[in-house]
């Protein structure tokens, strides 16, 4: 028996070593020149080494993301991570110019619209027609020219999308007219002051109809979930939402090849692992770093830890339908009781900014004044509660969504602060989907809410969060004056006029204490100091084409 086994083992080893003479993916791994050849040999198995095909000296960017996005389909992607890949593989008609922020970092200038696929444009006096001339050099990855037909095809696809059709509606486009191969006219049904701001979004990426010929809308959506049909600077070699993505710069990109040759996106769900990888220099950029971990990275001299202003805000929703909270004095008392400084300094380690008025500083229409701003004043809070008839105290529940430690910590500070003015708070922690259901059905007293405006515009923000019929007006806030201002502003064709209307609305919201604005989040990006030309966009999505290494 034993001998038989030994003999079998021996023959197995022999067979193995014989097989070893066959294909060996790394046979020439020590010689640089052999790499490319080996790569093509193994490519047939669908398993290529991520960086293996690159020639020595190639510029490879490695990025650590917390999650890998959901789709590559421009008309279905509503999250910032998916947008990263879409922006790499597609171009839009226009893009933003650059400016330098207070810290000296390059950031997108949302008021400076620059050409991309569109070379030039003309807007009619009344703001109802936009004539757009396409760049005659613009080519899709397949070599097909970018034409007016492609633009109309792409916009029609967004219009019919269940996911993002609302953005087409928001742009007020009535009809599209092809004048010649390179000219399109958009006829609007009413003026849209943020027309170009919408058009630069990844949602309005231009698709190549030639690649999608003969498919129905559903087939196109299914196809574009994992494949791309654009004119962008990168070709997506591999996209696996839970592990990694590999992007190759296209040599024949119509604007000229990107500086990087290859981008490796690693999906690292654990924040502590992302911190370690950045610290050890195994990744060039790490996204979504918790503020408290920046302390560990601050000593690393090879790293640049940047925080950018974002449009993400966190606030305390107050349900105006609750009996006590329907009283403006109670809401004001809660606003006066909030421990603003300790939330910013202790929970977010100072990497956030107190939100004075509801519109964050990265959004147009932001109000920079001390007037109407709440700061912690427990005396005043107690007095207001007494006036409202709650001198003997009050009990309220507070919803927090699980999966976000910052929000959980904030809830505890809020609970503690409110106990000092006689308000007993019961914290209820819920799973994210459950939490969303409870808040959107207005079934709560108070909730730690976060909102990141998908469109960086005060009208969009107010319409969703503070307009009485807004989708995200969780607290059912209703002010006839705010509603009237929103309707007036949305009908206006003058940007400055709109912004000043929204500033007026913010003062009303502050007086009504609709919610308690807590802080605006900083978008933290940790990167290697060797990177240059990293341009930050308010949507938080990286544009790899602009990065140099």
């Amino acid at each position, binding site marked *: 028996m034993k001998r038989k086994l030994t003999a079998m083992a021996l023959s197995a080893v022999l067979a*193995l*070593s014989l*097989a*070893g*003479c*066959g294909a*060996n*993916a*790394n046979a020439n*791994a020590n010689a640089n020149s052999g790499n490319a050849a080996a*790569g093509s*040999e*193994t490519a047939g198995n669908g*398993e*290529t*080494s*991520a*960086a*293996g095909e690159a020639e020595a000296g190639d510029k490879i960017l*490695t990025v650590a993301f917390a*999650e*890998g996005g*959901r*789709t590559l*389909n421009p008309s279905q992607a*509503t*999250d910032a991570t998916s947008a990263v890949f879409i922006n790499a593989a597609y171009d839009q008609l226009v893009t933003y110019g650059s400016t330098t922020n207070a810290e000296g970092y390059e950031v997108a200038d949302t008021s400076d619209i620059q050409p991309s696929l569109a070379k030039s444009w003309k807007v009619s006096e009344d703001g109802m027609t936009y004539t757009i001339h396409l760049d005659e050099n613009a080519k899709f990855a397949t070599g097909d020219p970018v034409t007016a037909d492609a633009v109309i095809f792409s916009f029609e696809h967004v219009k019919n999308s*269940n*996911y*993002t*059709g*609302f953005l087409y509606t928001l742009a007020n486009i009535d009809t599209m007219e092809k004048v010649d191969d390179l000219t399109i006219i958009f006829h609007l049904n009413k003026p849209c002051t943020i027309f170009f701001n919408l058009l630069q979004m990844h949602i309005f990426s231009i698709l190549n109809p030639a690649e999608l010929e003969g498919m129905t809308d559903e087939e196109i959506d*299914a196809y574009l*979930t*994992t494949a791309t049909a654009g004119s962008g600077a990168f070709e997506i070699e591999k996209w*696996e*939402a*839970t*592990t*990694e993505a590999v992007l190759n710069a296209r040599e024949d990109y119509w604007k000229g090849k990107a500086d990087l040759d290859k981008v*490796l996106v690693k*999906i*690292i*769900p*654990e924040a502590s*692992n992302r911190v*370690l990888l950045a*610290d*050890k220099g195994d*990744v060039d950029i790490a996204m979504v770093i918790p503020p408290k971990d920046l302390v560990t990275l601050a000593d690393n001299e090879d790293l640049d830890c940047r925080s950018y202003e974002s449009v993400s805000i966190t606030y305390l929703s107050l349900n105006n339908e609750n009996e006590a909270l329907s009283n403006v004095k109670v809401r004001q008392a809660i606003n006066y009781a909030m421990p603003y400084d300790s939330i910013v300094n202790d929970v977010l380690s100072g990497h956030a900014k107190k939100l004075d008025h509801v519109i964050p500083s990265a959004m147009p229409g932001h109000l920079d004044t001390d007037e109407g701003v709440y700061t912690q004043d427990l005396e005043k809070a107690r007095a207001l509660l007494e006036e409202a008839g709650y001198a003997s105290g009050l009990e309220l529940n507070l919803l927090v969504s699980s*999966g976000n430690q910052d929000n959980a910590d904030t809830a505890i500070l809020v609970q503690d602060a409110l106990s000092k003015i006689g308000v007993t708070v019961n914290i209820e922690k819920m*799973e*994210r*989907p*459950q939490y*969303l*259901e409870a808040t959107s059905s207005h079934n709560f007293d108070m909730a730690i809410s976060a909102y990141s405006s*998908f469109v960086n515009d005060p009208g969009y923000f107010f319409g969703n969060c503070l307009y009485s019929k807004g*989708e*995200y007006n969780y607290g059912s806030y209703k002010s006839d004056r705010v509603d009237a201002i929103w309707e007036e502003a949305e009908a206006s064709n003058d940007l400055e006029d709109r912004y000043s209307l929204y500033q007026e609305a913010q003062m009303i919201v502050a007086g009504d204490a609709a919610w308690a604005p807590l802080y605006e989040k900083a978008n933290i990006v940790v990167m290697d100091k060797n990177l240059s030309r990293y341009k930050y966009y308010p949507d938080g999505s990286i544009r790899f084409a602009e990065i140099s290494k």
Partner: protein
Amino acid sequence: MKYIIKRILQMIPSVLLVLLITFSLSRIVPGDPARMMAGEQAPEEAVERIREEMGLNKPIPEQFVVYVSEVARGDLGTAWHTGRPVAEDFAMRFPASFELALCALLLAVLIGVPVGIYAAAKKDSAVDHISRVITLLGTSVPVFWLGFMLIYLLYAKFEMIPAPFGRISDEIFPPTHITGLYLLDSILTGDIVAFKSAISHIFLPALCLCFGSLAIISRMTRSNMIEVLNLDYIRTARSKGIKESKVIGKHGFRNILVPVLTVIGAQLGGLIGNAVVVETIFNWPGIGSYITQSILQTDYAPVQAFTVISVLIYMFINLILDILYTVVDPRITY
């Protein structure tokens, strides 16, 4: 043979029951997958249209019938968060998970059983005490904590292992595809470079995954061996002057195989569960990390499929164990 067929037929009602339970659970849990899919900022009417598209507005019993008939045809549904059929996603990730589980099990058995036997033979010796402490740690230390500690120490502090992502370093080609198991494939093709990289990547997650099982396996081996060594036939063997190593290694060992096999089988179930945690921590591109993402995104289909497949694997392991019992102990017949 008849017995095996009977056992397989008995699995069918169990599988149906599991399908029913996982299906109902995922529907009872609050949270709307259509809402998650549309994005938190999509208008309600868009969510409604997506709900319709996914068949979520049909009556629940009808959804279940549709689900069972699809599973029967091998269609596990589509994972919307990757945009691919679940079966395809699983097939792609299975080798990674299988390799990790296999390595962990091998480590647990190859270390656990000998340590257990040695500890039993040298009861109350230093080795016995050390193994007891390790066992205590193994059963009480949570696997996620161990994972983070090992990463911190071996990767960040002492730089003994490469960055904890993936199965092989980026600059190295995966071995030519034969079985999909990198270690085996690299041996088969004689690819030393790939083997070295693959083993440096799998070492920590496998160690982490095996730790709990290793402790229990060595402990069970020890206690069973001690019991067996007190039996009369062992005393007889000893009095006949047979060498102690042979008494333990042959006479004793054969008789603890049945309980030890049972423990190993039970540990495999634990391995599947712990793999979800370990794969997530080590960014291992297997089924476990995929399931974590699916749960976070409220993606029903992969989670249901994973539960059903885990149950099938578990049933299959039990069947194999029952057959193995007859091999190791000829007294057992069915």
